[in-house]
């Protein structure tokens, strides 16, 4: 073994060792600590670990974790993957160190996409959507679209991208090999002005366009009633997890798997068995109440969850935190169309429960701030939480 080979072996051992200690000591899932230890020994460890494997990257503001889980399930074999939401290089290193599988599906943080493409040399890059998310710490969306465009245009990989999202099309359209998919979006506020010329886009019913010529490309894969047409092949799509947005995520996962040589019909049957993803959609007990845990981290995520709530009734719990991972500024609550919850009583949880309650008061909704005593309701209540609130609730639910 040559010098750099020893370094990779040492670094990989460090990743596994630190993560083993971390899990044993109960301090955490351990993925990031081990990954950082390995990267400290070999800064190109990710490239070394990815070499010789078929890698698929999944990025976007919303749906990364779910779509990655769909790809893993649909692939139908052991897949190296970052399951705990650790979606930066330390998490990727941990995922690859933990599995010898020759195939990998890695969820990738939006800001890290250019670096992770350079390191992993992927076969497929899935680009779901791009919208405002934690603007106090992330780059503004148009700058991010430009950085994606630079990273996607030169590579020897297939980009599987959502043609319904104008910012995604701007980012992916410079790439020589794109598999366009038409996944429905319930969020358009970040895409009303043209990414090329900033004029107002014409968001037609069938396809969007701009007078400058920038327009929605025709899609190779689409949703048709209860089914999906993936590169010409019609397959049935019976998902266990709810919502129109997840049907779109499944469409992109199937298109990506098709590009990797997996039969769409077979993949669709496999991913129909997915019932929960990292606690999302899971049943749990929180403060003595049976709940269904739902995650929404930003306006687009809330738009998707509220669209799914339209057919439901009864009380609803919402938890809003302002941890570092949430963004410290909850002003995005005013970009969410909470008005559609009118008539539903809502209970407000989380460190920013007063901000939420004020937002709901202005939306004309009967909102109760939960201070000391949790309410109790018959049956199961839906609980929509943003990122750190979701993680806390999940831990609380798991600890009983």
């Amino acid at each position: 073994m040559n010098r750099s080979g020893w370094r990779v072996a040492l670094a990989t051992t460090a990743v596994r060792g630190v993560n083993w200690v971390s899990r044993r000591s109960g301090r955490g899932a351990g993925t990031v600590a081990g990954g950082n230890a390995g990267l400290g020994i070999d800064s190109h460890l990710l490239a070394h670990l990815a070499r010789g494997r078929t890698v698929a990257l999944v990025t976007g503001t919303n749906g990364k974790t779910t779509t990655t889980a769909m790809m893993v399930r649909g692939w139908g074999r052991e897949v190296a993957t970052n399951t705990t939401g650790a979606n930066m290089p330390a998490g990727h290193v941990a995922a690859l160190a933990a599995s010898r599988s020759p195939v990998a599906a890695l969820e990738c943080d939006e800001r890290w996409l250019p670096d992770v493409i350079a390191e992993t040399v992927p076969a497929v890059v899935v680009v779901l959507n791009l919208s405002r998310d934690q603007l106090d710490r992330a780059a503004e969306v148009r700058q991010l679209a430009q950085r994606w465009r630079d990273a996607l245009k030169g590579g020897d990989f297939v980009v599987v991208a959502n043609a319904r999202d104008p910012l995604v099309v701007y980012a992916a359209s410079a790439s020589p090999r794109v598999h366009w998919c038409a996944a429905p979006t319930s969020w358009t506020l970040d895409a009303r002005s043209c990414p090329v010329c900033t004029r107002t886009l014409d968001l037609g019913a069938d396809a969007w366009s701009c007078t400058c010529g920038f327009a929605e490309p025709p899609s190779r894969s689409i949703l048709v009633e209860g089914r999906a047409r993936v590169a010409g092949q019609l397959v049935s799509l019976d998902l266990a997890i709810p919502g129109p947005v997840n049907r779109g995520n499944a469409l992109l996962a199937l298109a990506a798997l098709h590009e990797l040589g997996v039969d769409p019909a077979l993949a669709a049957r496999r991913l129909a068995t997915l019932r929960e993803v990292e606690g999302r959609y899971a049943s749990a007990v929180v403060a003595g109440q049976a709940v269904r845990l739902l995650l929404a981290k930003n306006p687009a995520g809330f738009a998707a969850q509220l669209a799914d709530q339209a057919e439901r009734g009864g009380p609803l719990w919402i938890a809003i935190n302002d941890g570092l991972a949430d963004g410290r500024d909850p002003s995005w609550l005013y970009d969410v169309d909470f008005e559609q919850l009118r008539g539903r009583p809502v209970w407000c949880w989380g460190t920013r429960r007063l901000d939420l309650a004020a937002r709901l008061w202005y939306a004309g909704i009967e909102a109760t701030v939960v201070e000391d005593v949790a309410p109790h309701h018959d049956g199961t209540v839906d609980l929509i939480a943003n990122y750190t609130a979701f993680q806390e609730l999940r831990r609380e639910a798991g600890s009983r």
Partner: protein
Amino acid sequence: MRIALVFPELLGTYGDGGNAVVLARRLERRGLPAEVLEVRPGDAFPAADLYLLGGGEDGPQRLAADLLIASTLAARVADGAGVFAVCAGLQLLGTSFAVEGDSTYAGLALVPATTVRGMARSVGDAVVRVDGRLVVGFENHGGVTHLAPGLDAFGEVVVGHGNDARSDGFRAERIWATYLHGPVLAQNPWLADALLASVLGHELEPLASVADDLYAARCAQLMGTGA
């Protein structure tokens, strides 16, 4: 009262549309009529009692400035309409502003203020003292705004950066501008009512709500006391 939300697609990055919702609901809950008009690029500029300008990214901000210079906004303000502007909206009311690179762009010149790019972005919770009362919010911008002599600031910075770490925004006849979003009128119900009273020309009855609890909690948290 007719409230015009100006170019929400271009100037609405930080939940700024919330300021229109807050003003309209606070009027309606007191039985006063309110109408919110969304102004889109290419629309005829509507008559309104109050125009709201929000925050935006660099490209959309430049487009909004060009569209507003060509619009009747300045004439409407001269005729008595009010303007409440936040962040990018604040910058484009002045004579010039700088965004990406070192390029400088013309503003509406409704007030003698100029904005240059600062050394670093100002991001975080912010508190400003206005007429002896606190205004709480969040700021996220890269500008430093200079006010010409004679132009009053909106308030004095207590926490955060504002224009230049000393003053925030500006206040001219029928024009209010601040770097604080939040949206700022949702976090500061007293400011929303002060703005409405100024536009209406009379005081409003008190209106208690959970927004008051939010304001008290934010003041206590950001001032480190039970202020």
